[in-house]
């Protein structure tokens, strides 16, 4: 009986949804999940909710893997003539999409809603504007964002005679603290003072944070053909890394993998680590002993790059699909939805108004670590974005890894990184800045 009942219910439901679908604009949204599987499920929940609230639109969420895989799949879909209606795209890939002329400027959508582009962008934190607006036009709507953060083990601090309420603020403090936190047993190190990620992608981001804390900003935000690796601010940042490993021996040699960093921090073999604010929820759930978070220590100033993703609308869809995508984008970046997603993931909500909601206020009061992440946002800046961003970033990362492994000295490494990056940027530079009137 129960079975028949549920069968009837299912039939009725499918008939209902079939009629709804008949009228609805069907769109698809590609979305990556950078951190873990639970996020993919939560995203599907959000899409179900949106479809219920907007019967005229039927969104299909397509999980497309990591940020890099999402980039590949989006490009493949555009090339095949079937562009997705909306994509959650790594914020620093937007410049390349604009160079390749694959995405739409969104200013006219905002204007149609009666908002100036400036007013539209002003709902988001200022740090996010640089990567969302390229050449004066809005190409991305910030969806979730992060910054690098210093995580530290409270018990290790106490054991080393340090005050856990006073995290290192300057690079000088950082070295002193790291030395005290490093525990040795003969030749062996049983607890490292600090670990930073040494793998592609995260390493470039971390180096960018150190470079910014040293007064640098290693790309030209107005022109994607220039990168400044061979500079004093970068030399200082890379020398710090070299010294932490080879001079003070408070950081392990070689490129440290992500699982190693996480497990070492959870297991107490690393007293401090640099990780994304996007890892907050993951670390909160996995860490058994007390931890705290702090700003990335500075040499000249407090400054970190943003990370995370924005929503884009590729070219080549029908106006109806574009409109439906815009509606979805506005919904996903609204204070309520963005705030909920932020609490679920640990990313901060790009929409400032999210933090005025009572549930967000009580969440921050309950989780002071999320508050620190938000406070650091005041010092955040744009994420480096150039032509061929991934490859240009790798040019630096390969050389930093060589320094971390003791194969090269910082000055020589940066010279090589600059030469390799310049070569990668060459085709774009020749087609633009060096393309002169004859």
């Amino acid at each position, binding site marked *: 009986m129960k079975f028949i009942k549920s069968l009837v219910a299912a039939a009725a439901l499918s008939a209902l949804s079939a009629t709804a679908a008949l009228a609805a604009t069907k769109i698809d949204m590609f979305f990556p999940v950078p951190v873990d599987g639970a996020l993919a499920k939560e995203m599907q929940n959000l899409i179900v909710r949106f479809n219920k609230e907007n019967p005229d639109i039927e969104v299909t969420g397509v999980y497309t893997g990591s940020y*890099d895989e999402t*980039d*590949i799949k989006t490009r493949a879909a555009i090339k095949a003539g079937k562009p997705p209606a909306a994509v959650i795209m790594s914020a620093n890939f937007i410049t390349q999409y604009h160079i*390749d002329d694959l995405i739409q400027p969104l200013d006219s959508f905002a204007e149609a809603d009666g908002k100036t582009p400036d007013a539209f962008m002003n709902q988001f934190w200022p740090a996010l504007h640089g990567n969302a607006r390229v050449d004066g036009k809005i190409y991305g709507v910030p969806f979730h964002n992060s910054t690098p953060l210093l995580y530290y083990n409270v018990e290790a601090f106490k054991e080393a005679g340090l005050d856990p309420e006073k995290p290192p603020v300057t690079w000088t403090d950082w070295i002193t603290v790291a030395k005290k936190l490093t525990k040795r047993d003969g*030749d*062996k*190190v049983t607890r490292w003072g600090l670990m930073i990620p*040494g*793998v*592609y*992608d995260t390493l470039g981001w971390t180096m960018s944070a150190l470079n910014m804390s040293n007064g640098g900003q290693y790309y030209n935000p107005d022109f994607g053909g220039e990168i400044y690796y061979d500079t004093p601010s970068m030399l200082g940042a890379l020398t710090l890394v070299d010294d932490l490993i080879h001079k003070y021996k408070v950081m*392990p*040699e*070689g*490129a*440290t*993998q992500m*699982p*190693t960093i996480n*497990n*070492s921090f959870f*297991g107490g*073999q690393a007293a401090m680590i640099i990780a994304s604010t996007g890892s907050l929820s993951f670390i909160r759930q996995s860490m058994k002993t007390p931890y705290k978070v702090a700003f990335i220590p500075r040499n000249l100033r407090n400054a970190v790059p943003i990370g995370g993703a924005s929503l884009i609308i590729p070219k080549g869809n029908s106006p109806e699909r574009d409109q439906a995508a815009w509606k979805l984008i506005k919904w996903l970046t609204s204070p309520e939805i963005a705030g909920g997603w932020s609490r679920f993931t640990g990313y901060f909500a790009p929409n400032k108004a999210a933090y005025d909601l009572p549930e967000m206020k009580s969440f921050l009061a309950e989780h002071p670590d999320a508050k620190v992440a938000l406070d650091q946002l005041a010092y955040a800046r744009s994420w480096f974005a150039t032509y*061929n961003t*991934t*490859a240009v970033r*790798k040019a630096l*990362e*390969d*050389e930093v*890894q*060589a320094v*971390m*492994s003791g*194969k090269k000295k910082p000055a020589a490494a940066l010279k090589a990184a600059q030469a390799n990056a310049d070569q*990668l940027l060459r*085709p*774009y530079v*020749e*087609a633009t800045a060096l393309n002169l009137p004859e």
Partner: protein
Amino acid sequence: MSDAVFRDNLALAQPVAPPAARKKRDSSAPTAALLLAPSLLFLALFTYAPILQALTQAFTIEKFGGKFAGYGFGNFQRLFFDAAFQKAFANTFLYGIGTVAPSLVIAVILAAALQESTRFNNLLRTIFFFPTLLPLVAAAALGSFVLMPGAGLLDYYLAQLGAAQTNWLGDPDIALYSIIGLTIWKNAGYYMLFALAGLQGIPSDIHEAAKLDGAGPITRFFRITLPLLMPTLAVIVVIALINVVTQVDHVIVLTGGGPSDSTNVLLNYIFQAAHEQHDIGRGAAATIVSVALLLALSFVSLKTLERGMHYES
């Protein structure tokens, strides 16, 4: 014995089917073609067409922004002068030698040791074969925990023996060897299965005759078993070579080709050229080069091993 081999070779040289049977097959040709058509269609769509496309792309020169600029060898020229390609090529070469030869030796030793079908041997065979059942991605994910410096399984037990910490995947001098080790562990059991099948095909009377003549187990292995196993070994070498060029999951999961490109192999290089640098032409050229290399290697290894082969029914 040499007579028997000679006769078998003669038998191989003769046409396989008698004329009557061939005629019958001809009459059913349309049916056969019809039955094969679906798979042929899919092969054409998903194998032959992409091969053609890769070939065209490799010889197509594009200007900035993907604008067509003619045909030529420009992509290959850029490829060969690219230091990253040279590095990937050298890495693949080292990775090939480092995985194929040891896996082959281990496979033959395991097969020879576990040839007798006892219950204990069956258990051991299952244990050695087990890694084959794991997807390469899963094996790599396991590997990332085993190879973790300090806290990982490998370092933990090495520390008990008094060894210092090693950054298995983060040291550019060691990373490729860590990946080679994982690959051998993953593949040797699979190759053992081929070697076992090959060993079953060697008639026991030859061994008995040799025993009567006073040959010890080592002499018998090198004079009888190994020569008669050659056709099987040729197959294993070709499969192993194909694996060298086509398996990349573990590299992507464990190191992404780093640190400092020290584990970057050809397939990962192709991925980087095509998808990270959006340079389809150079990616296609690298594809053509590695496939050509693979074909040549397979051909040469089959030919060389065939020369020393003894066929046995």
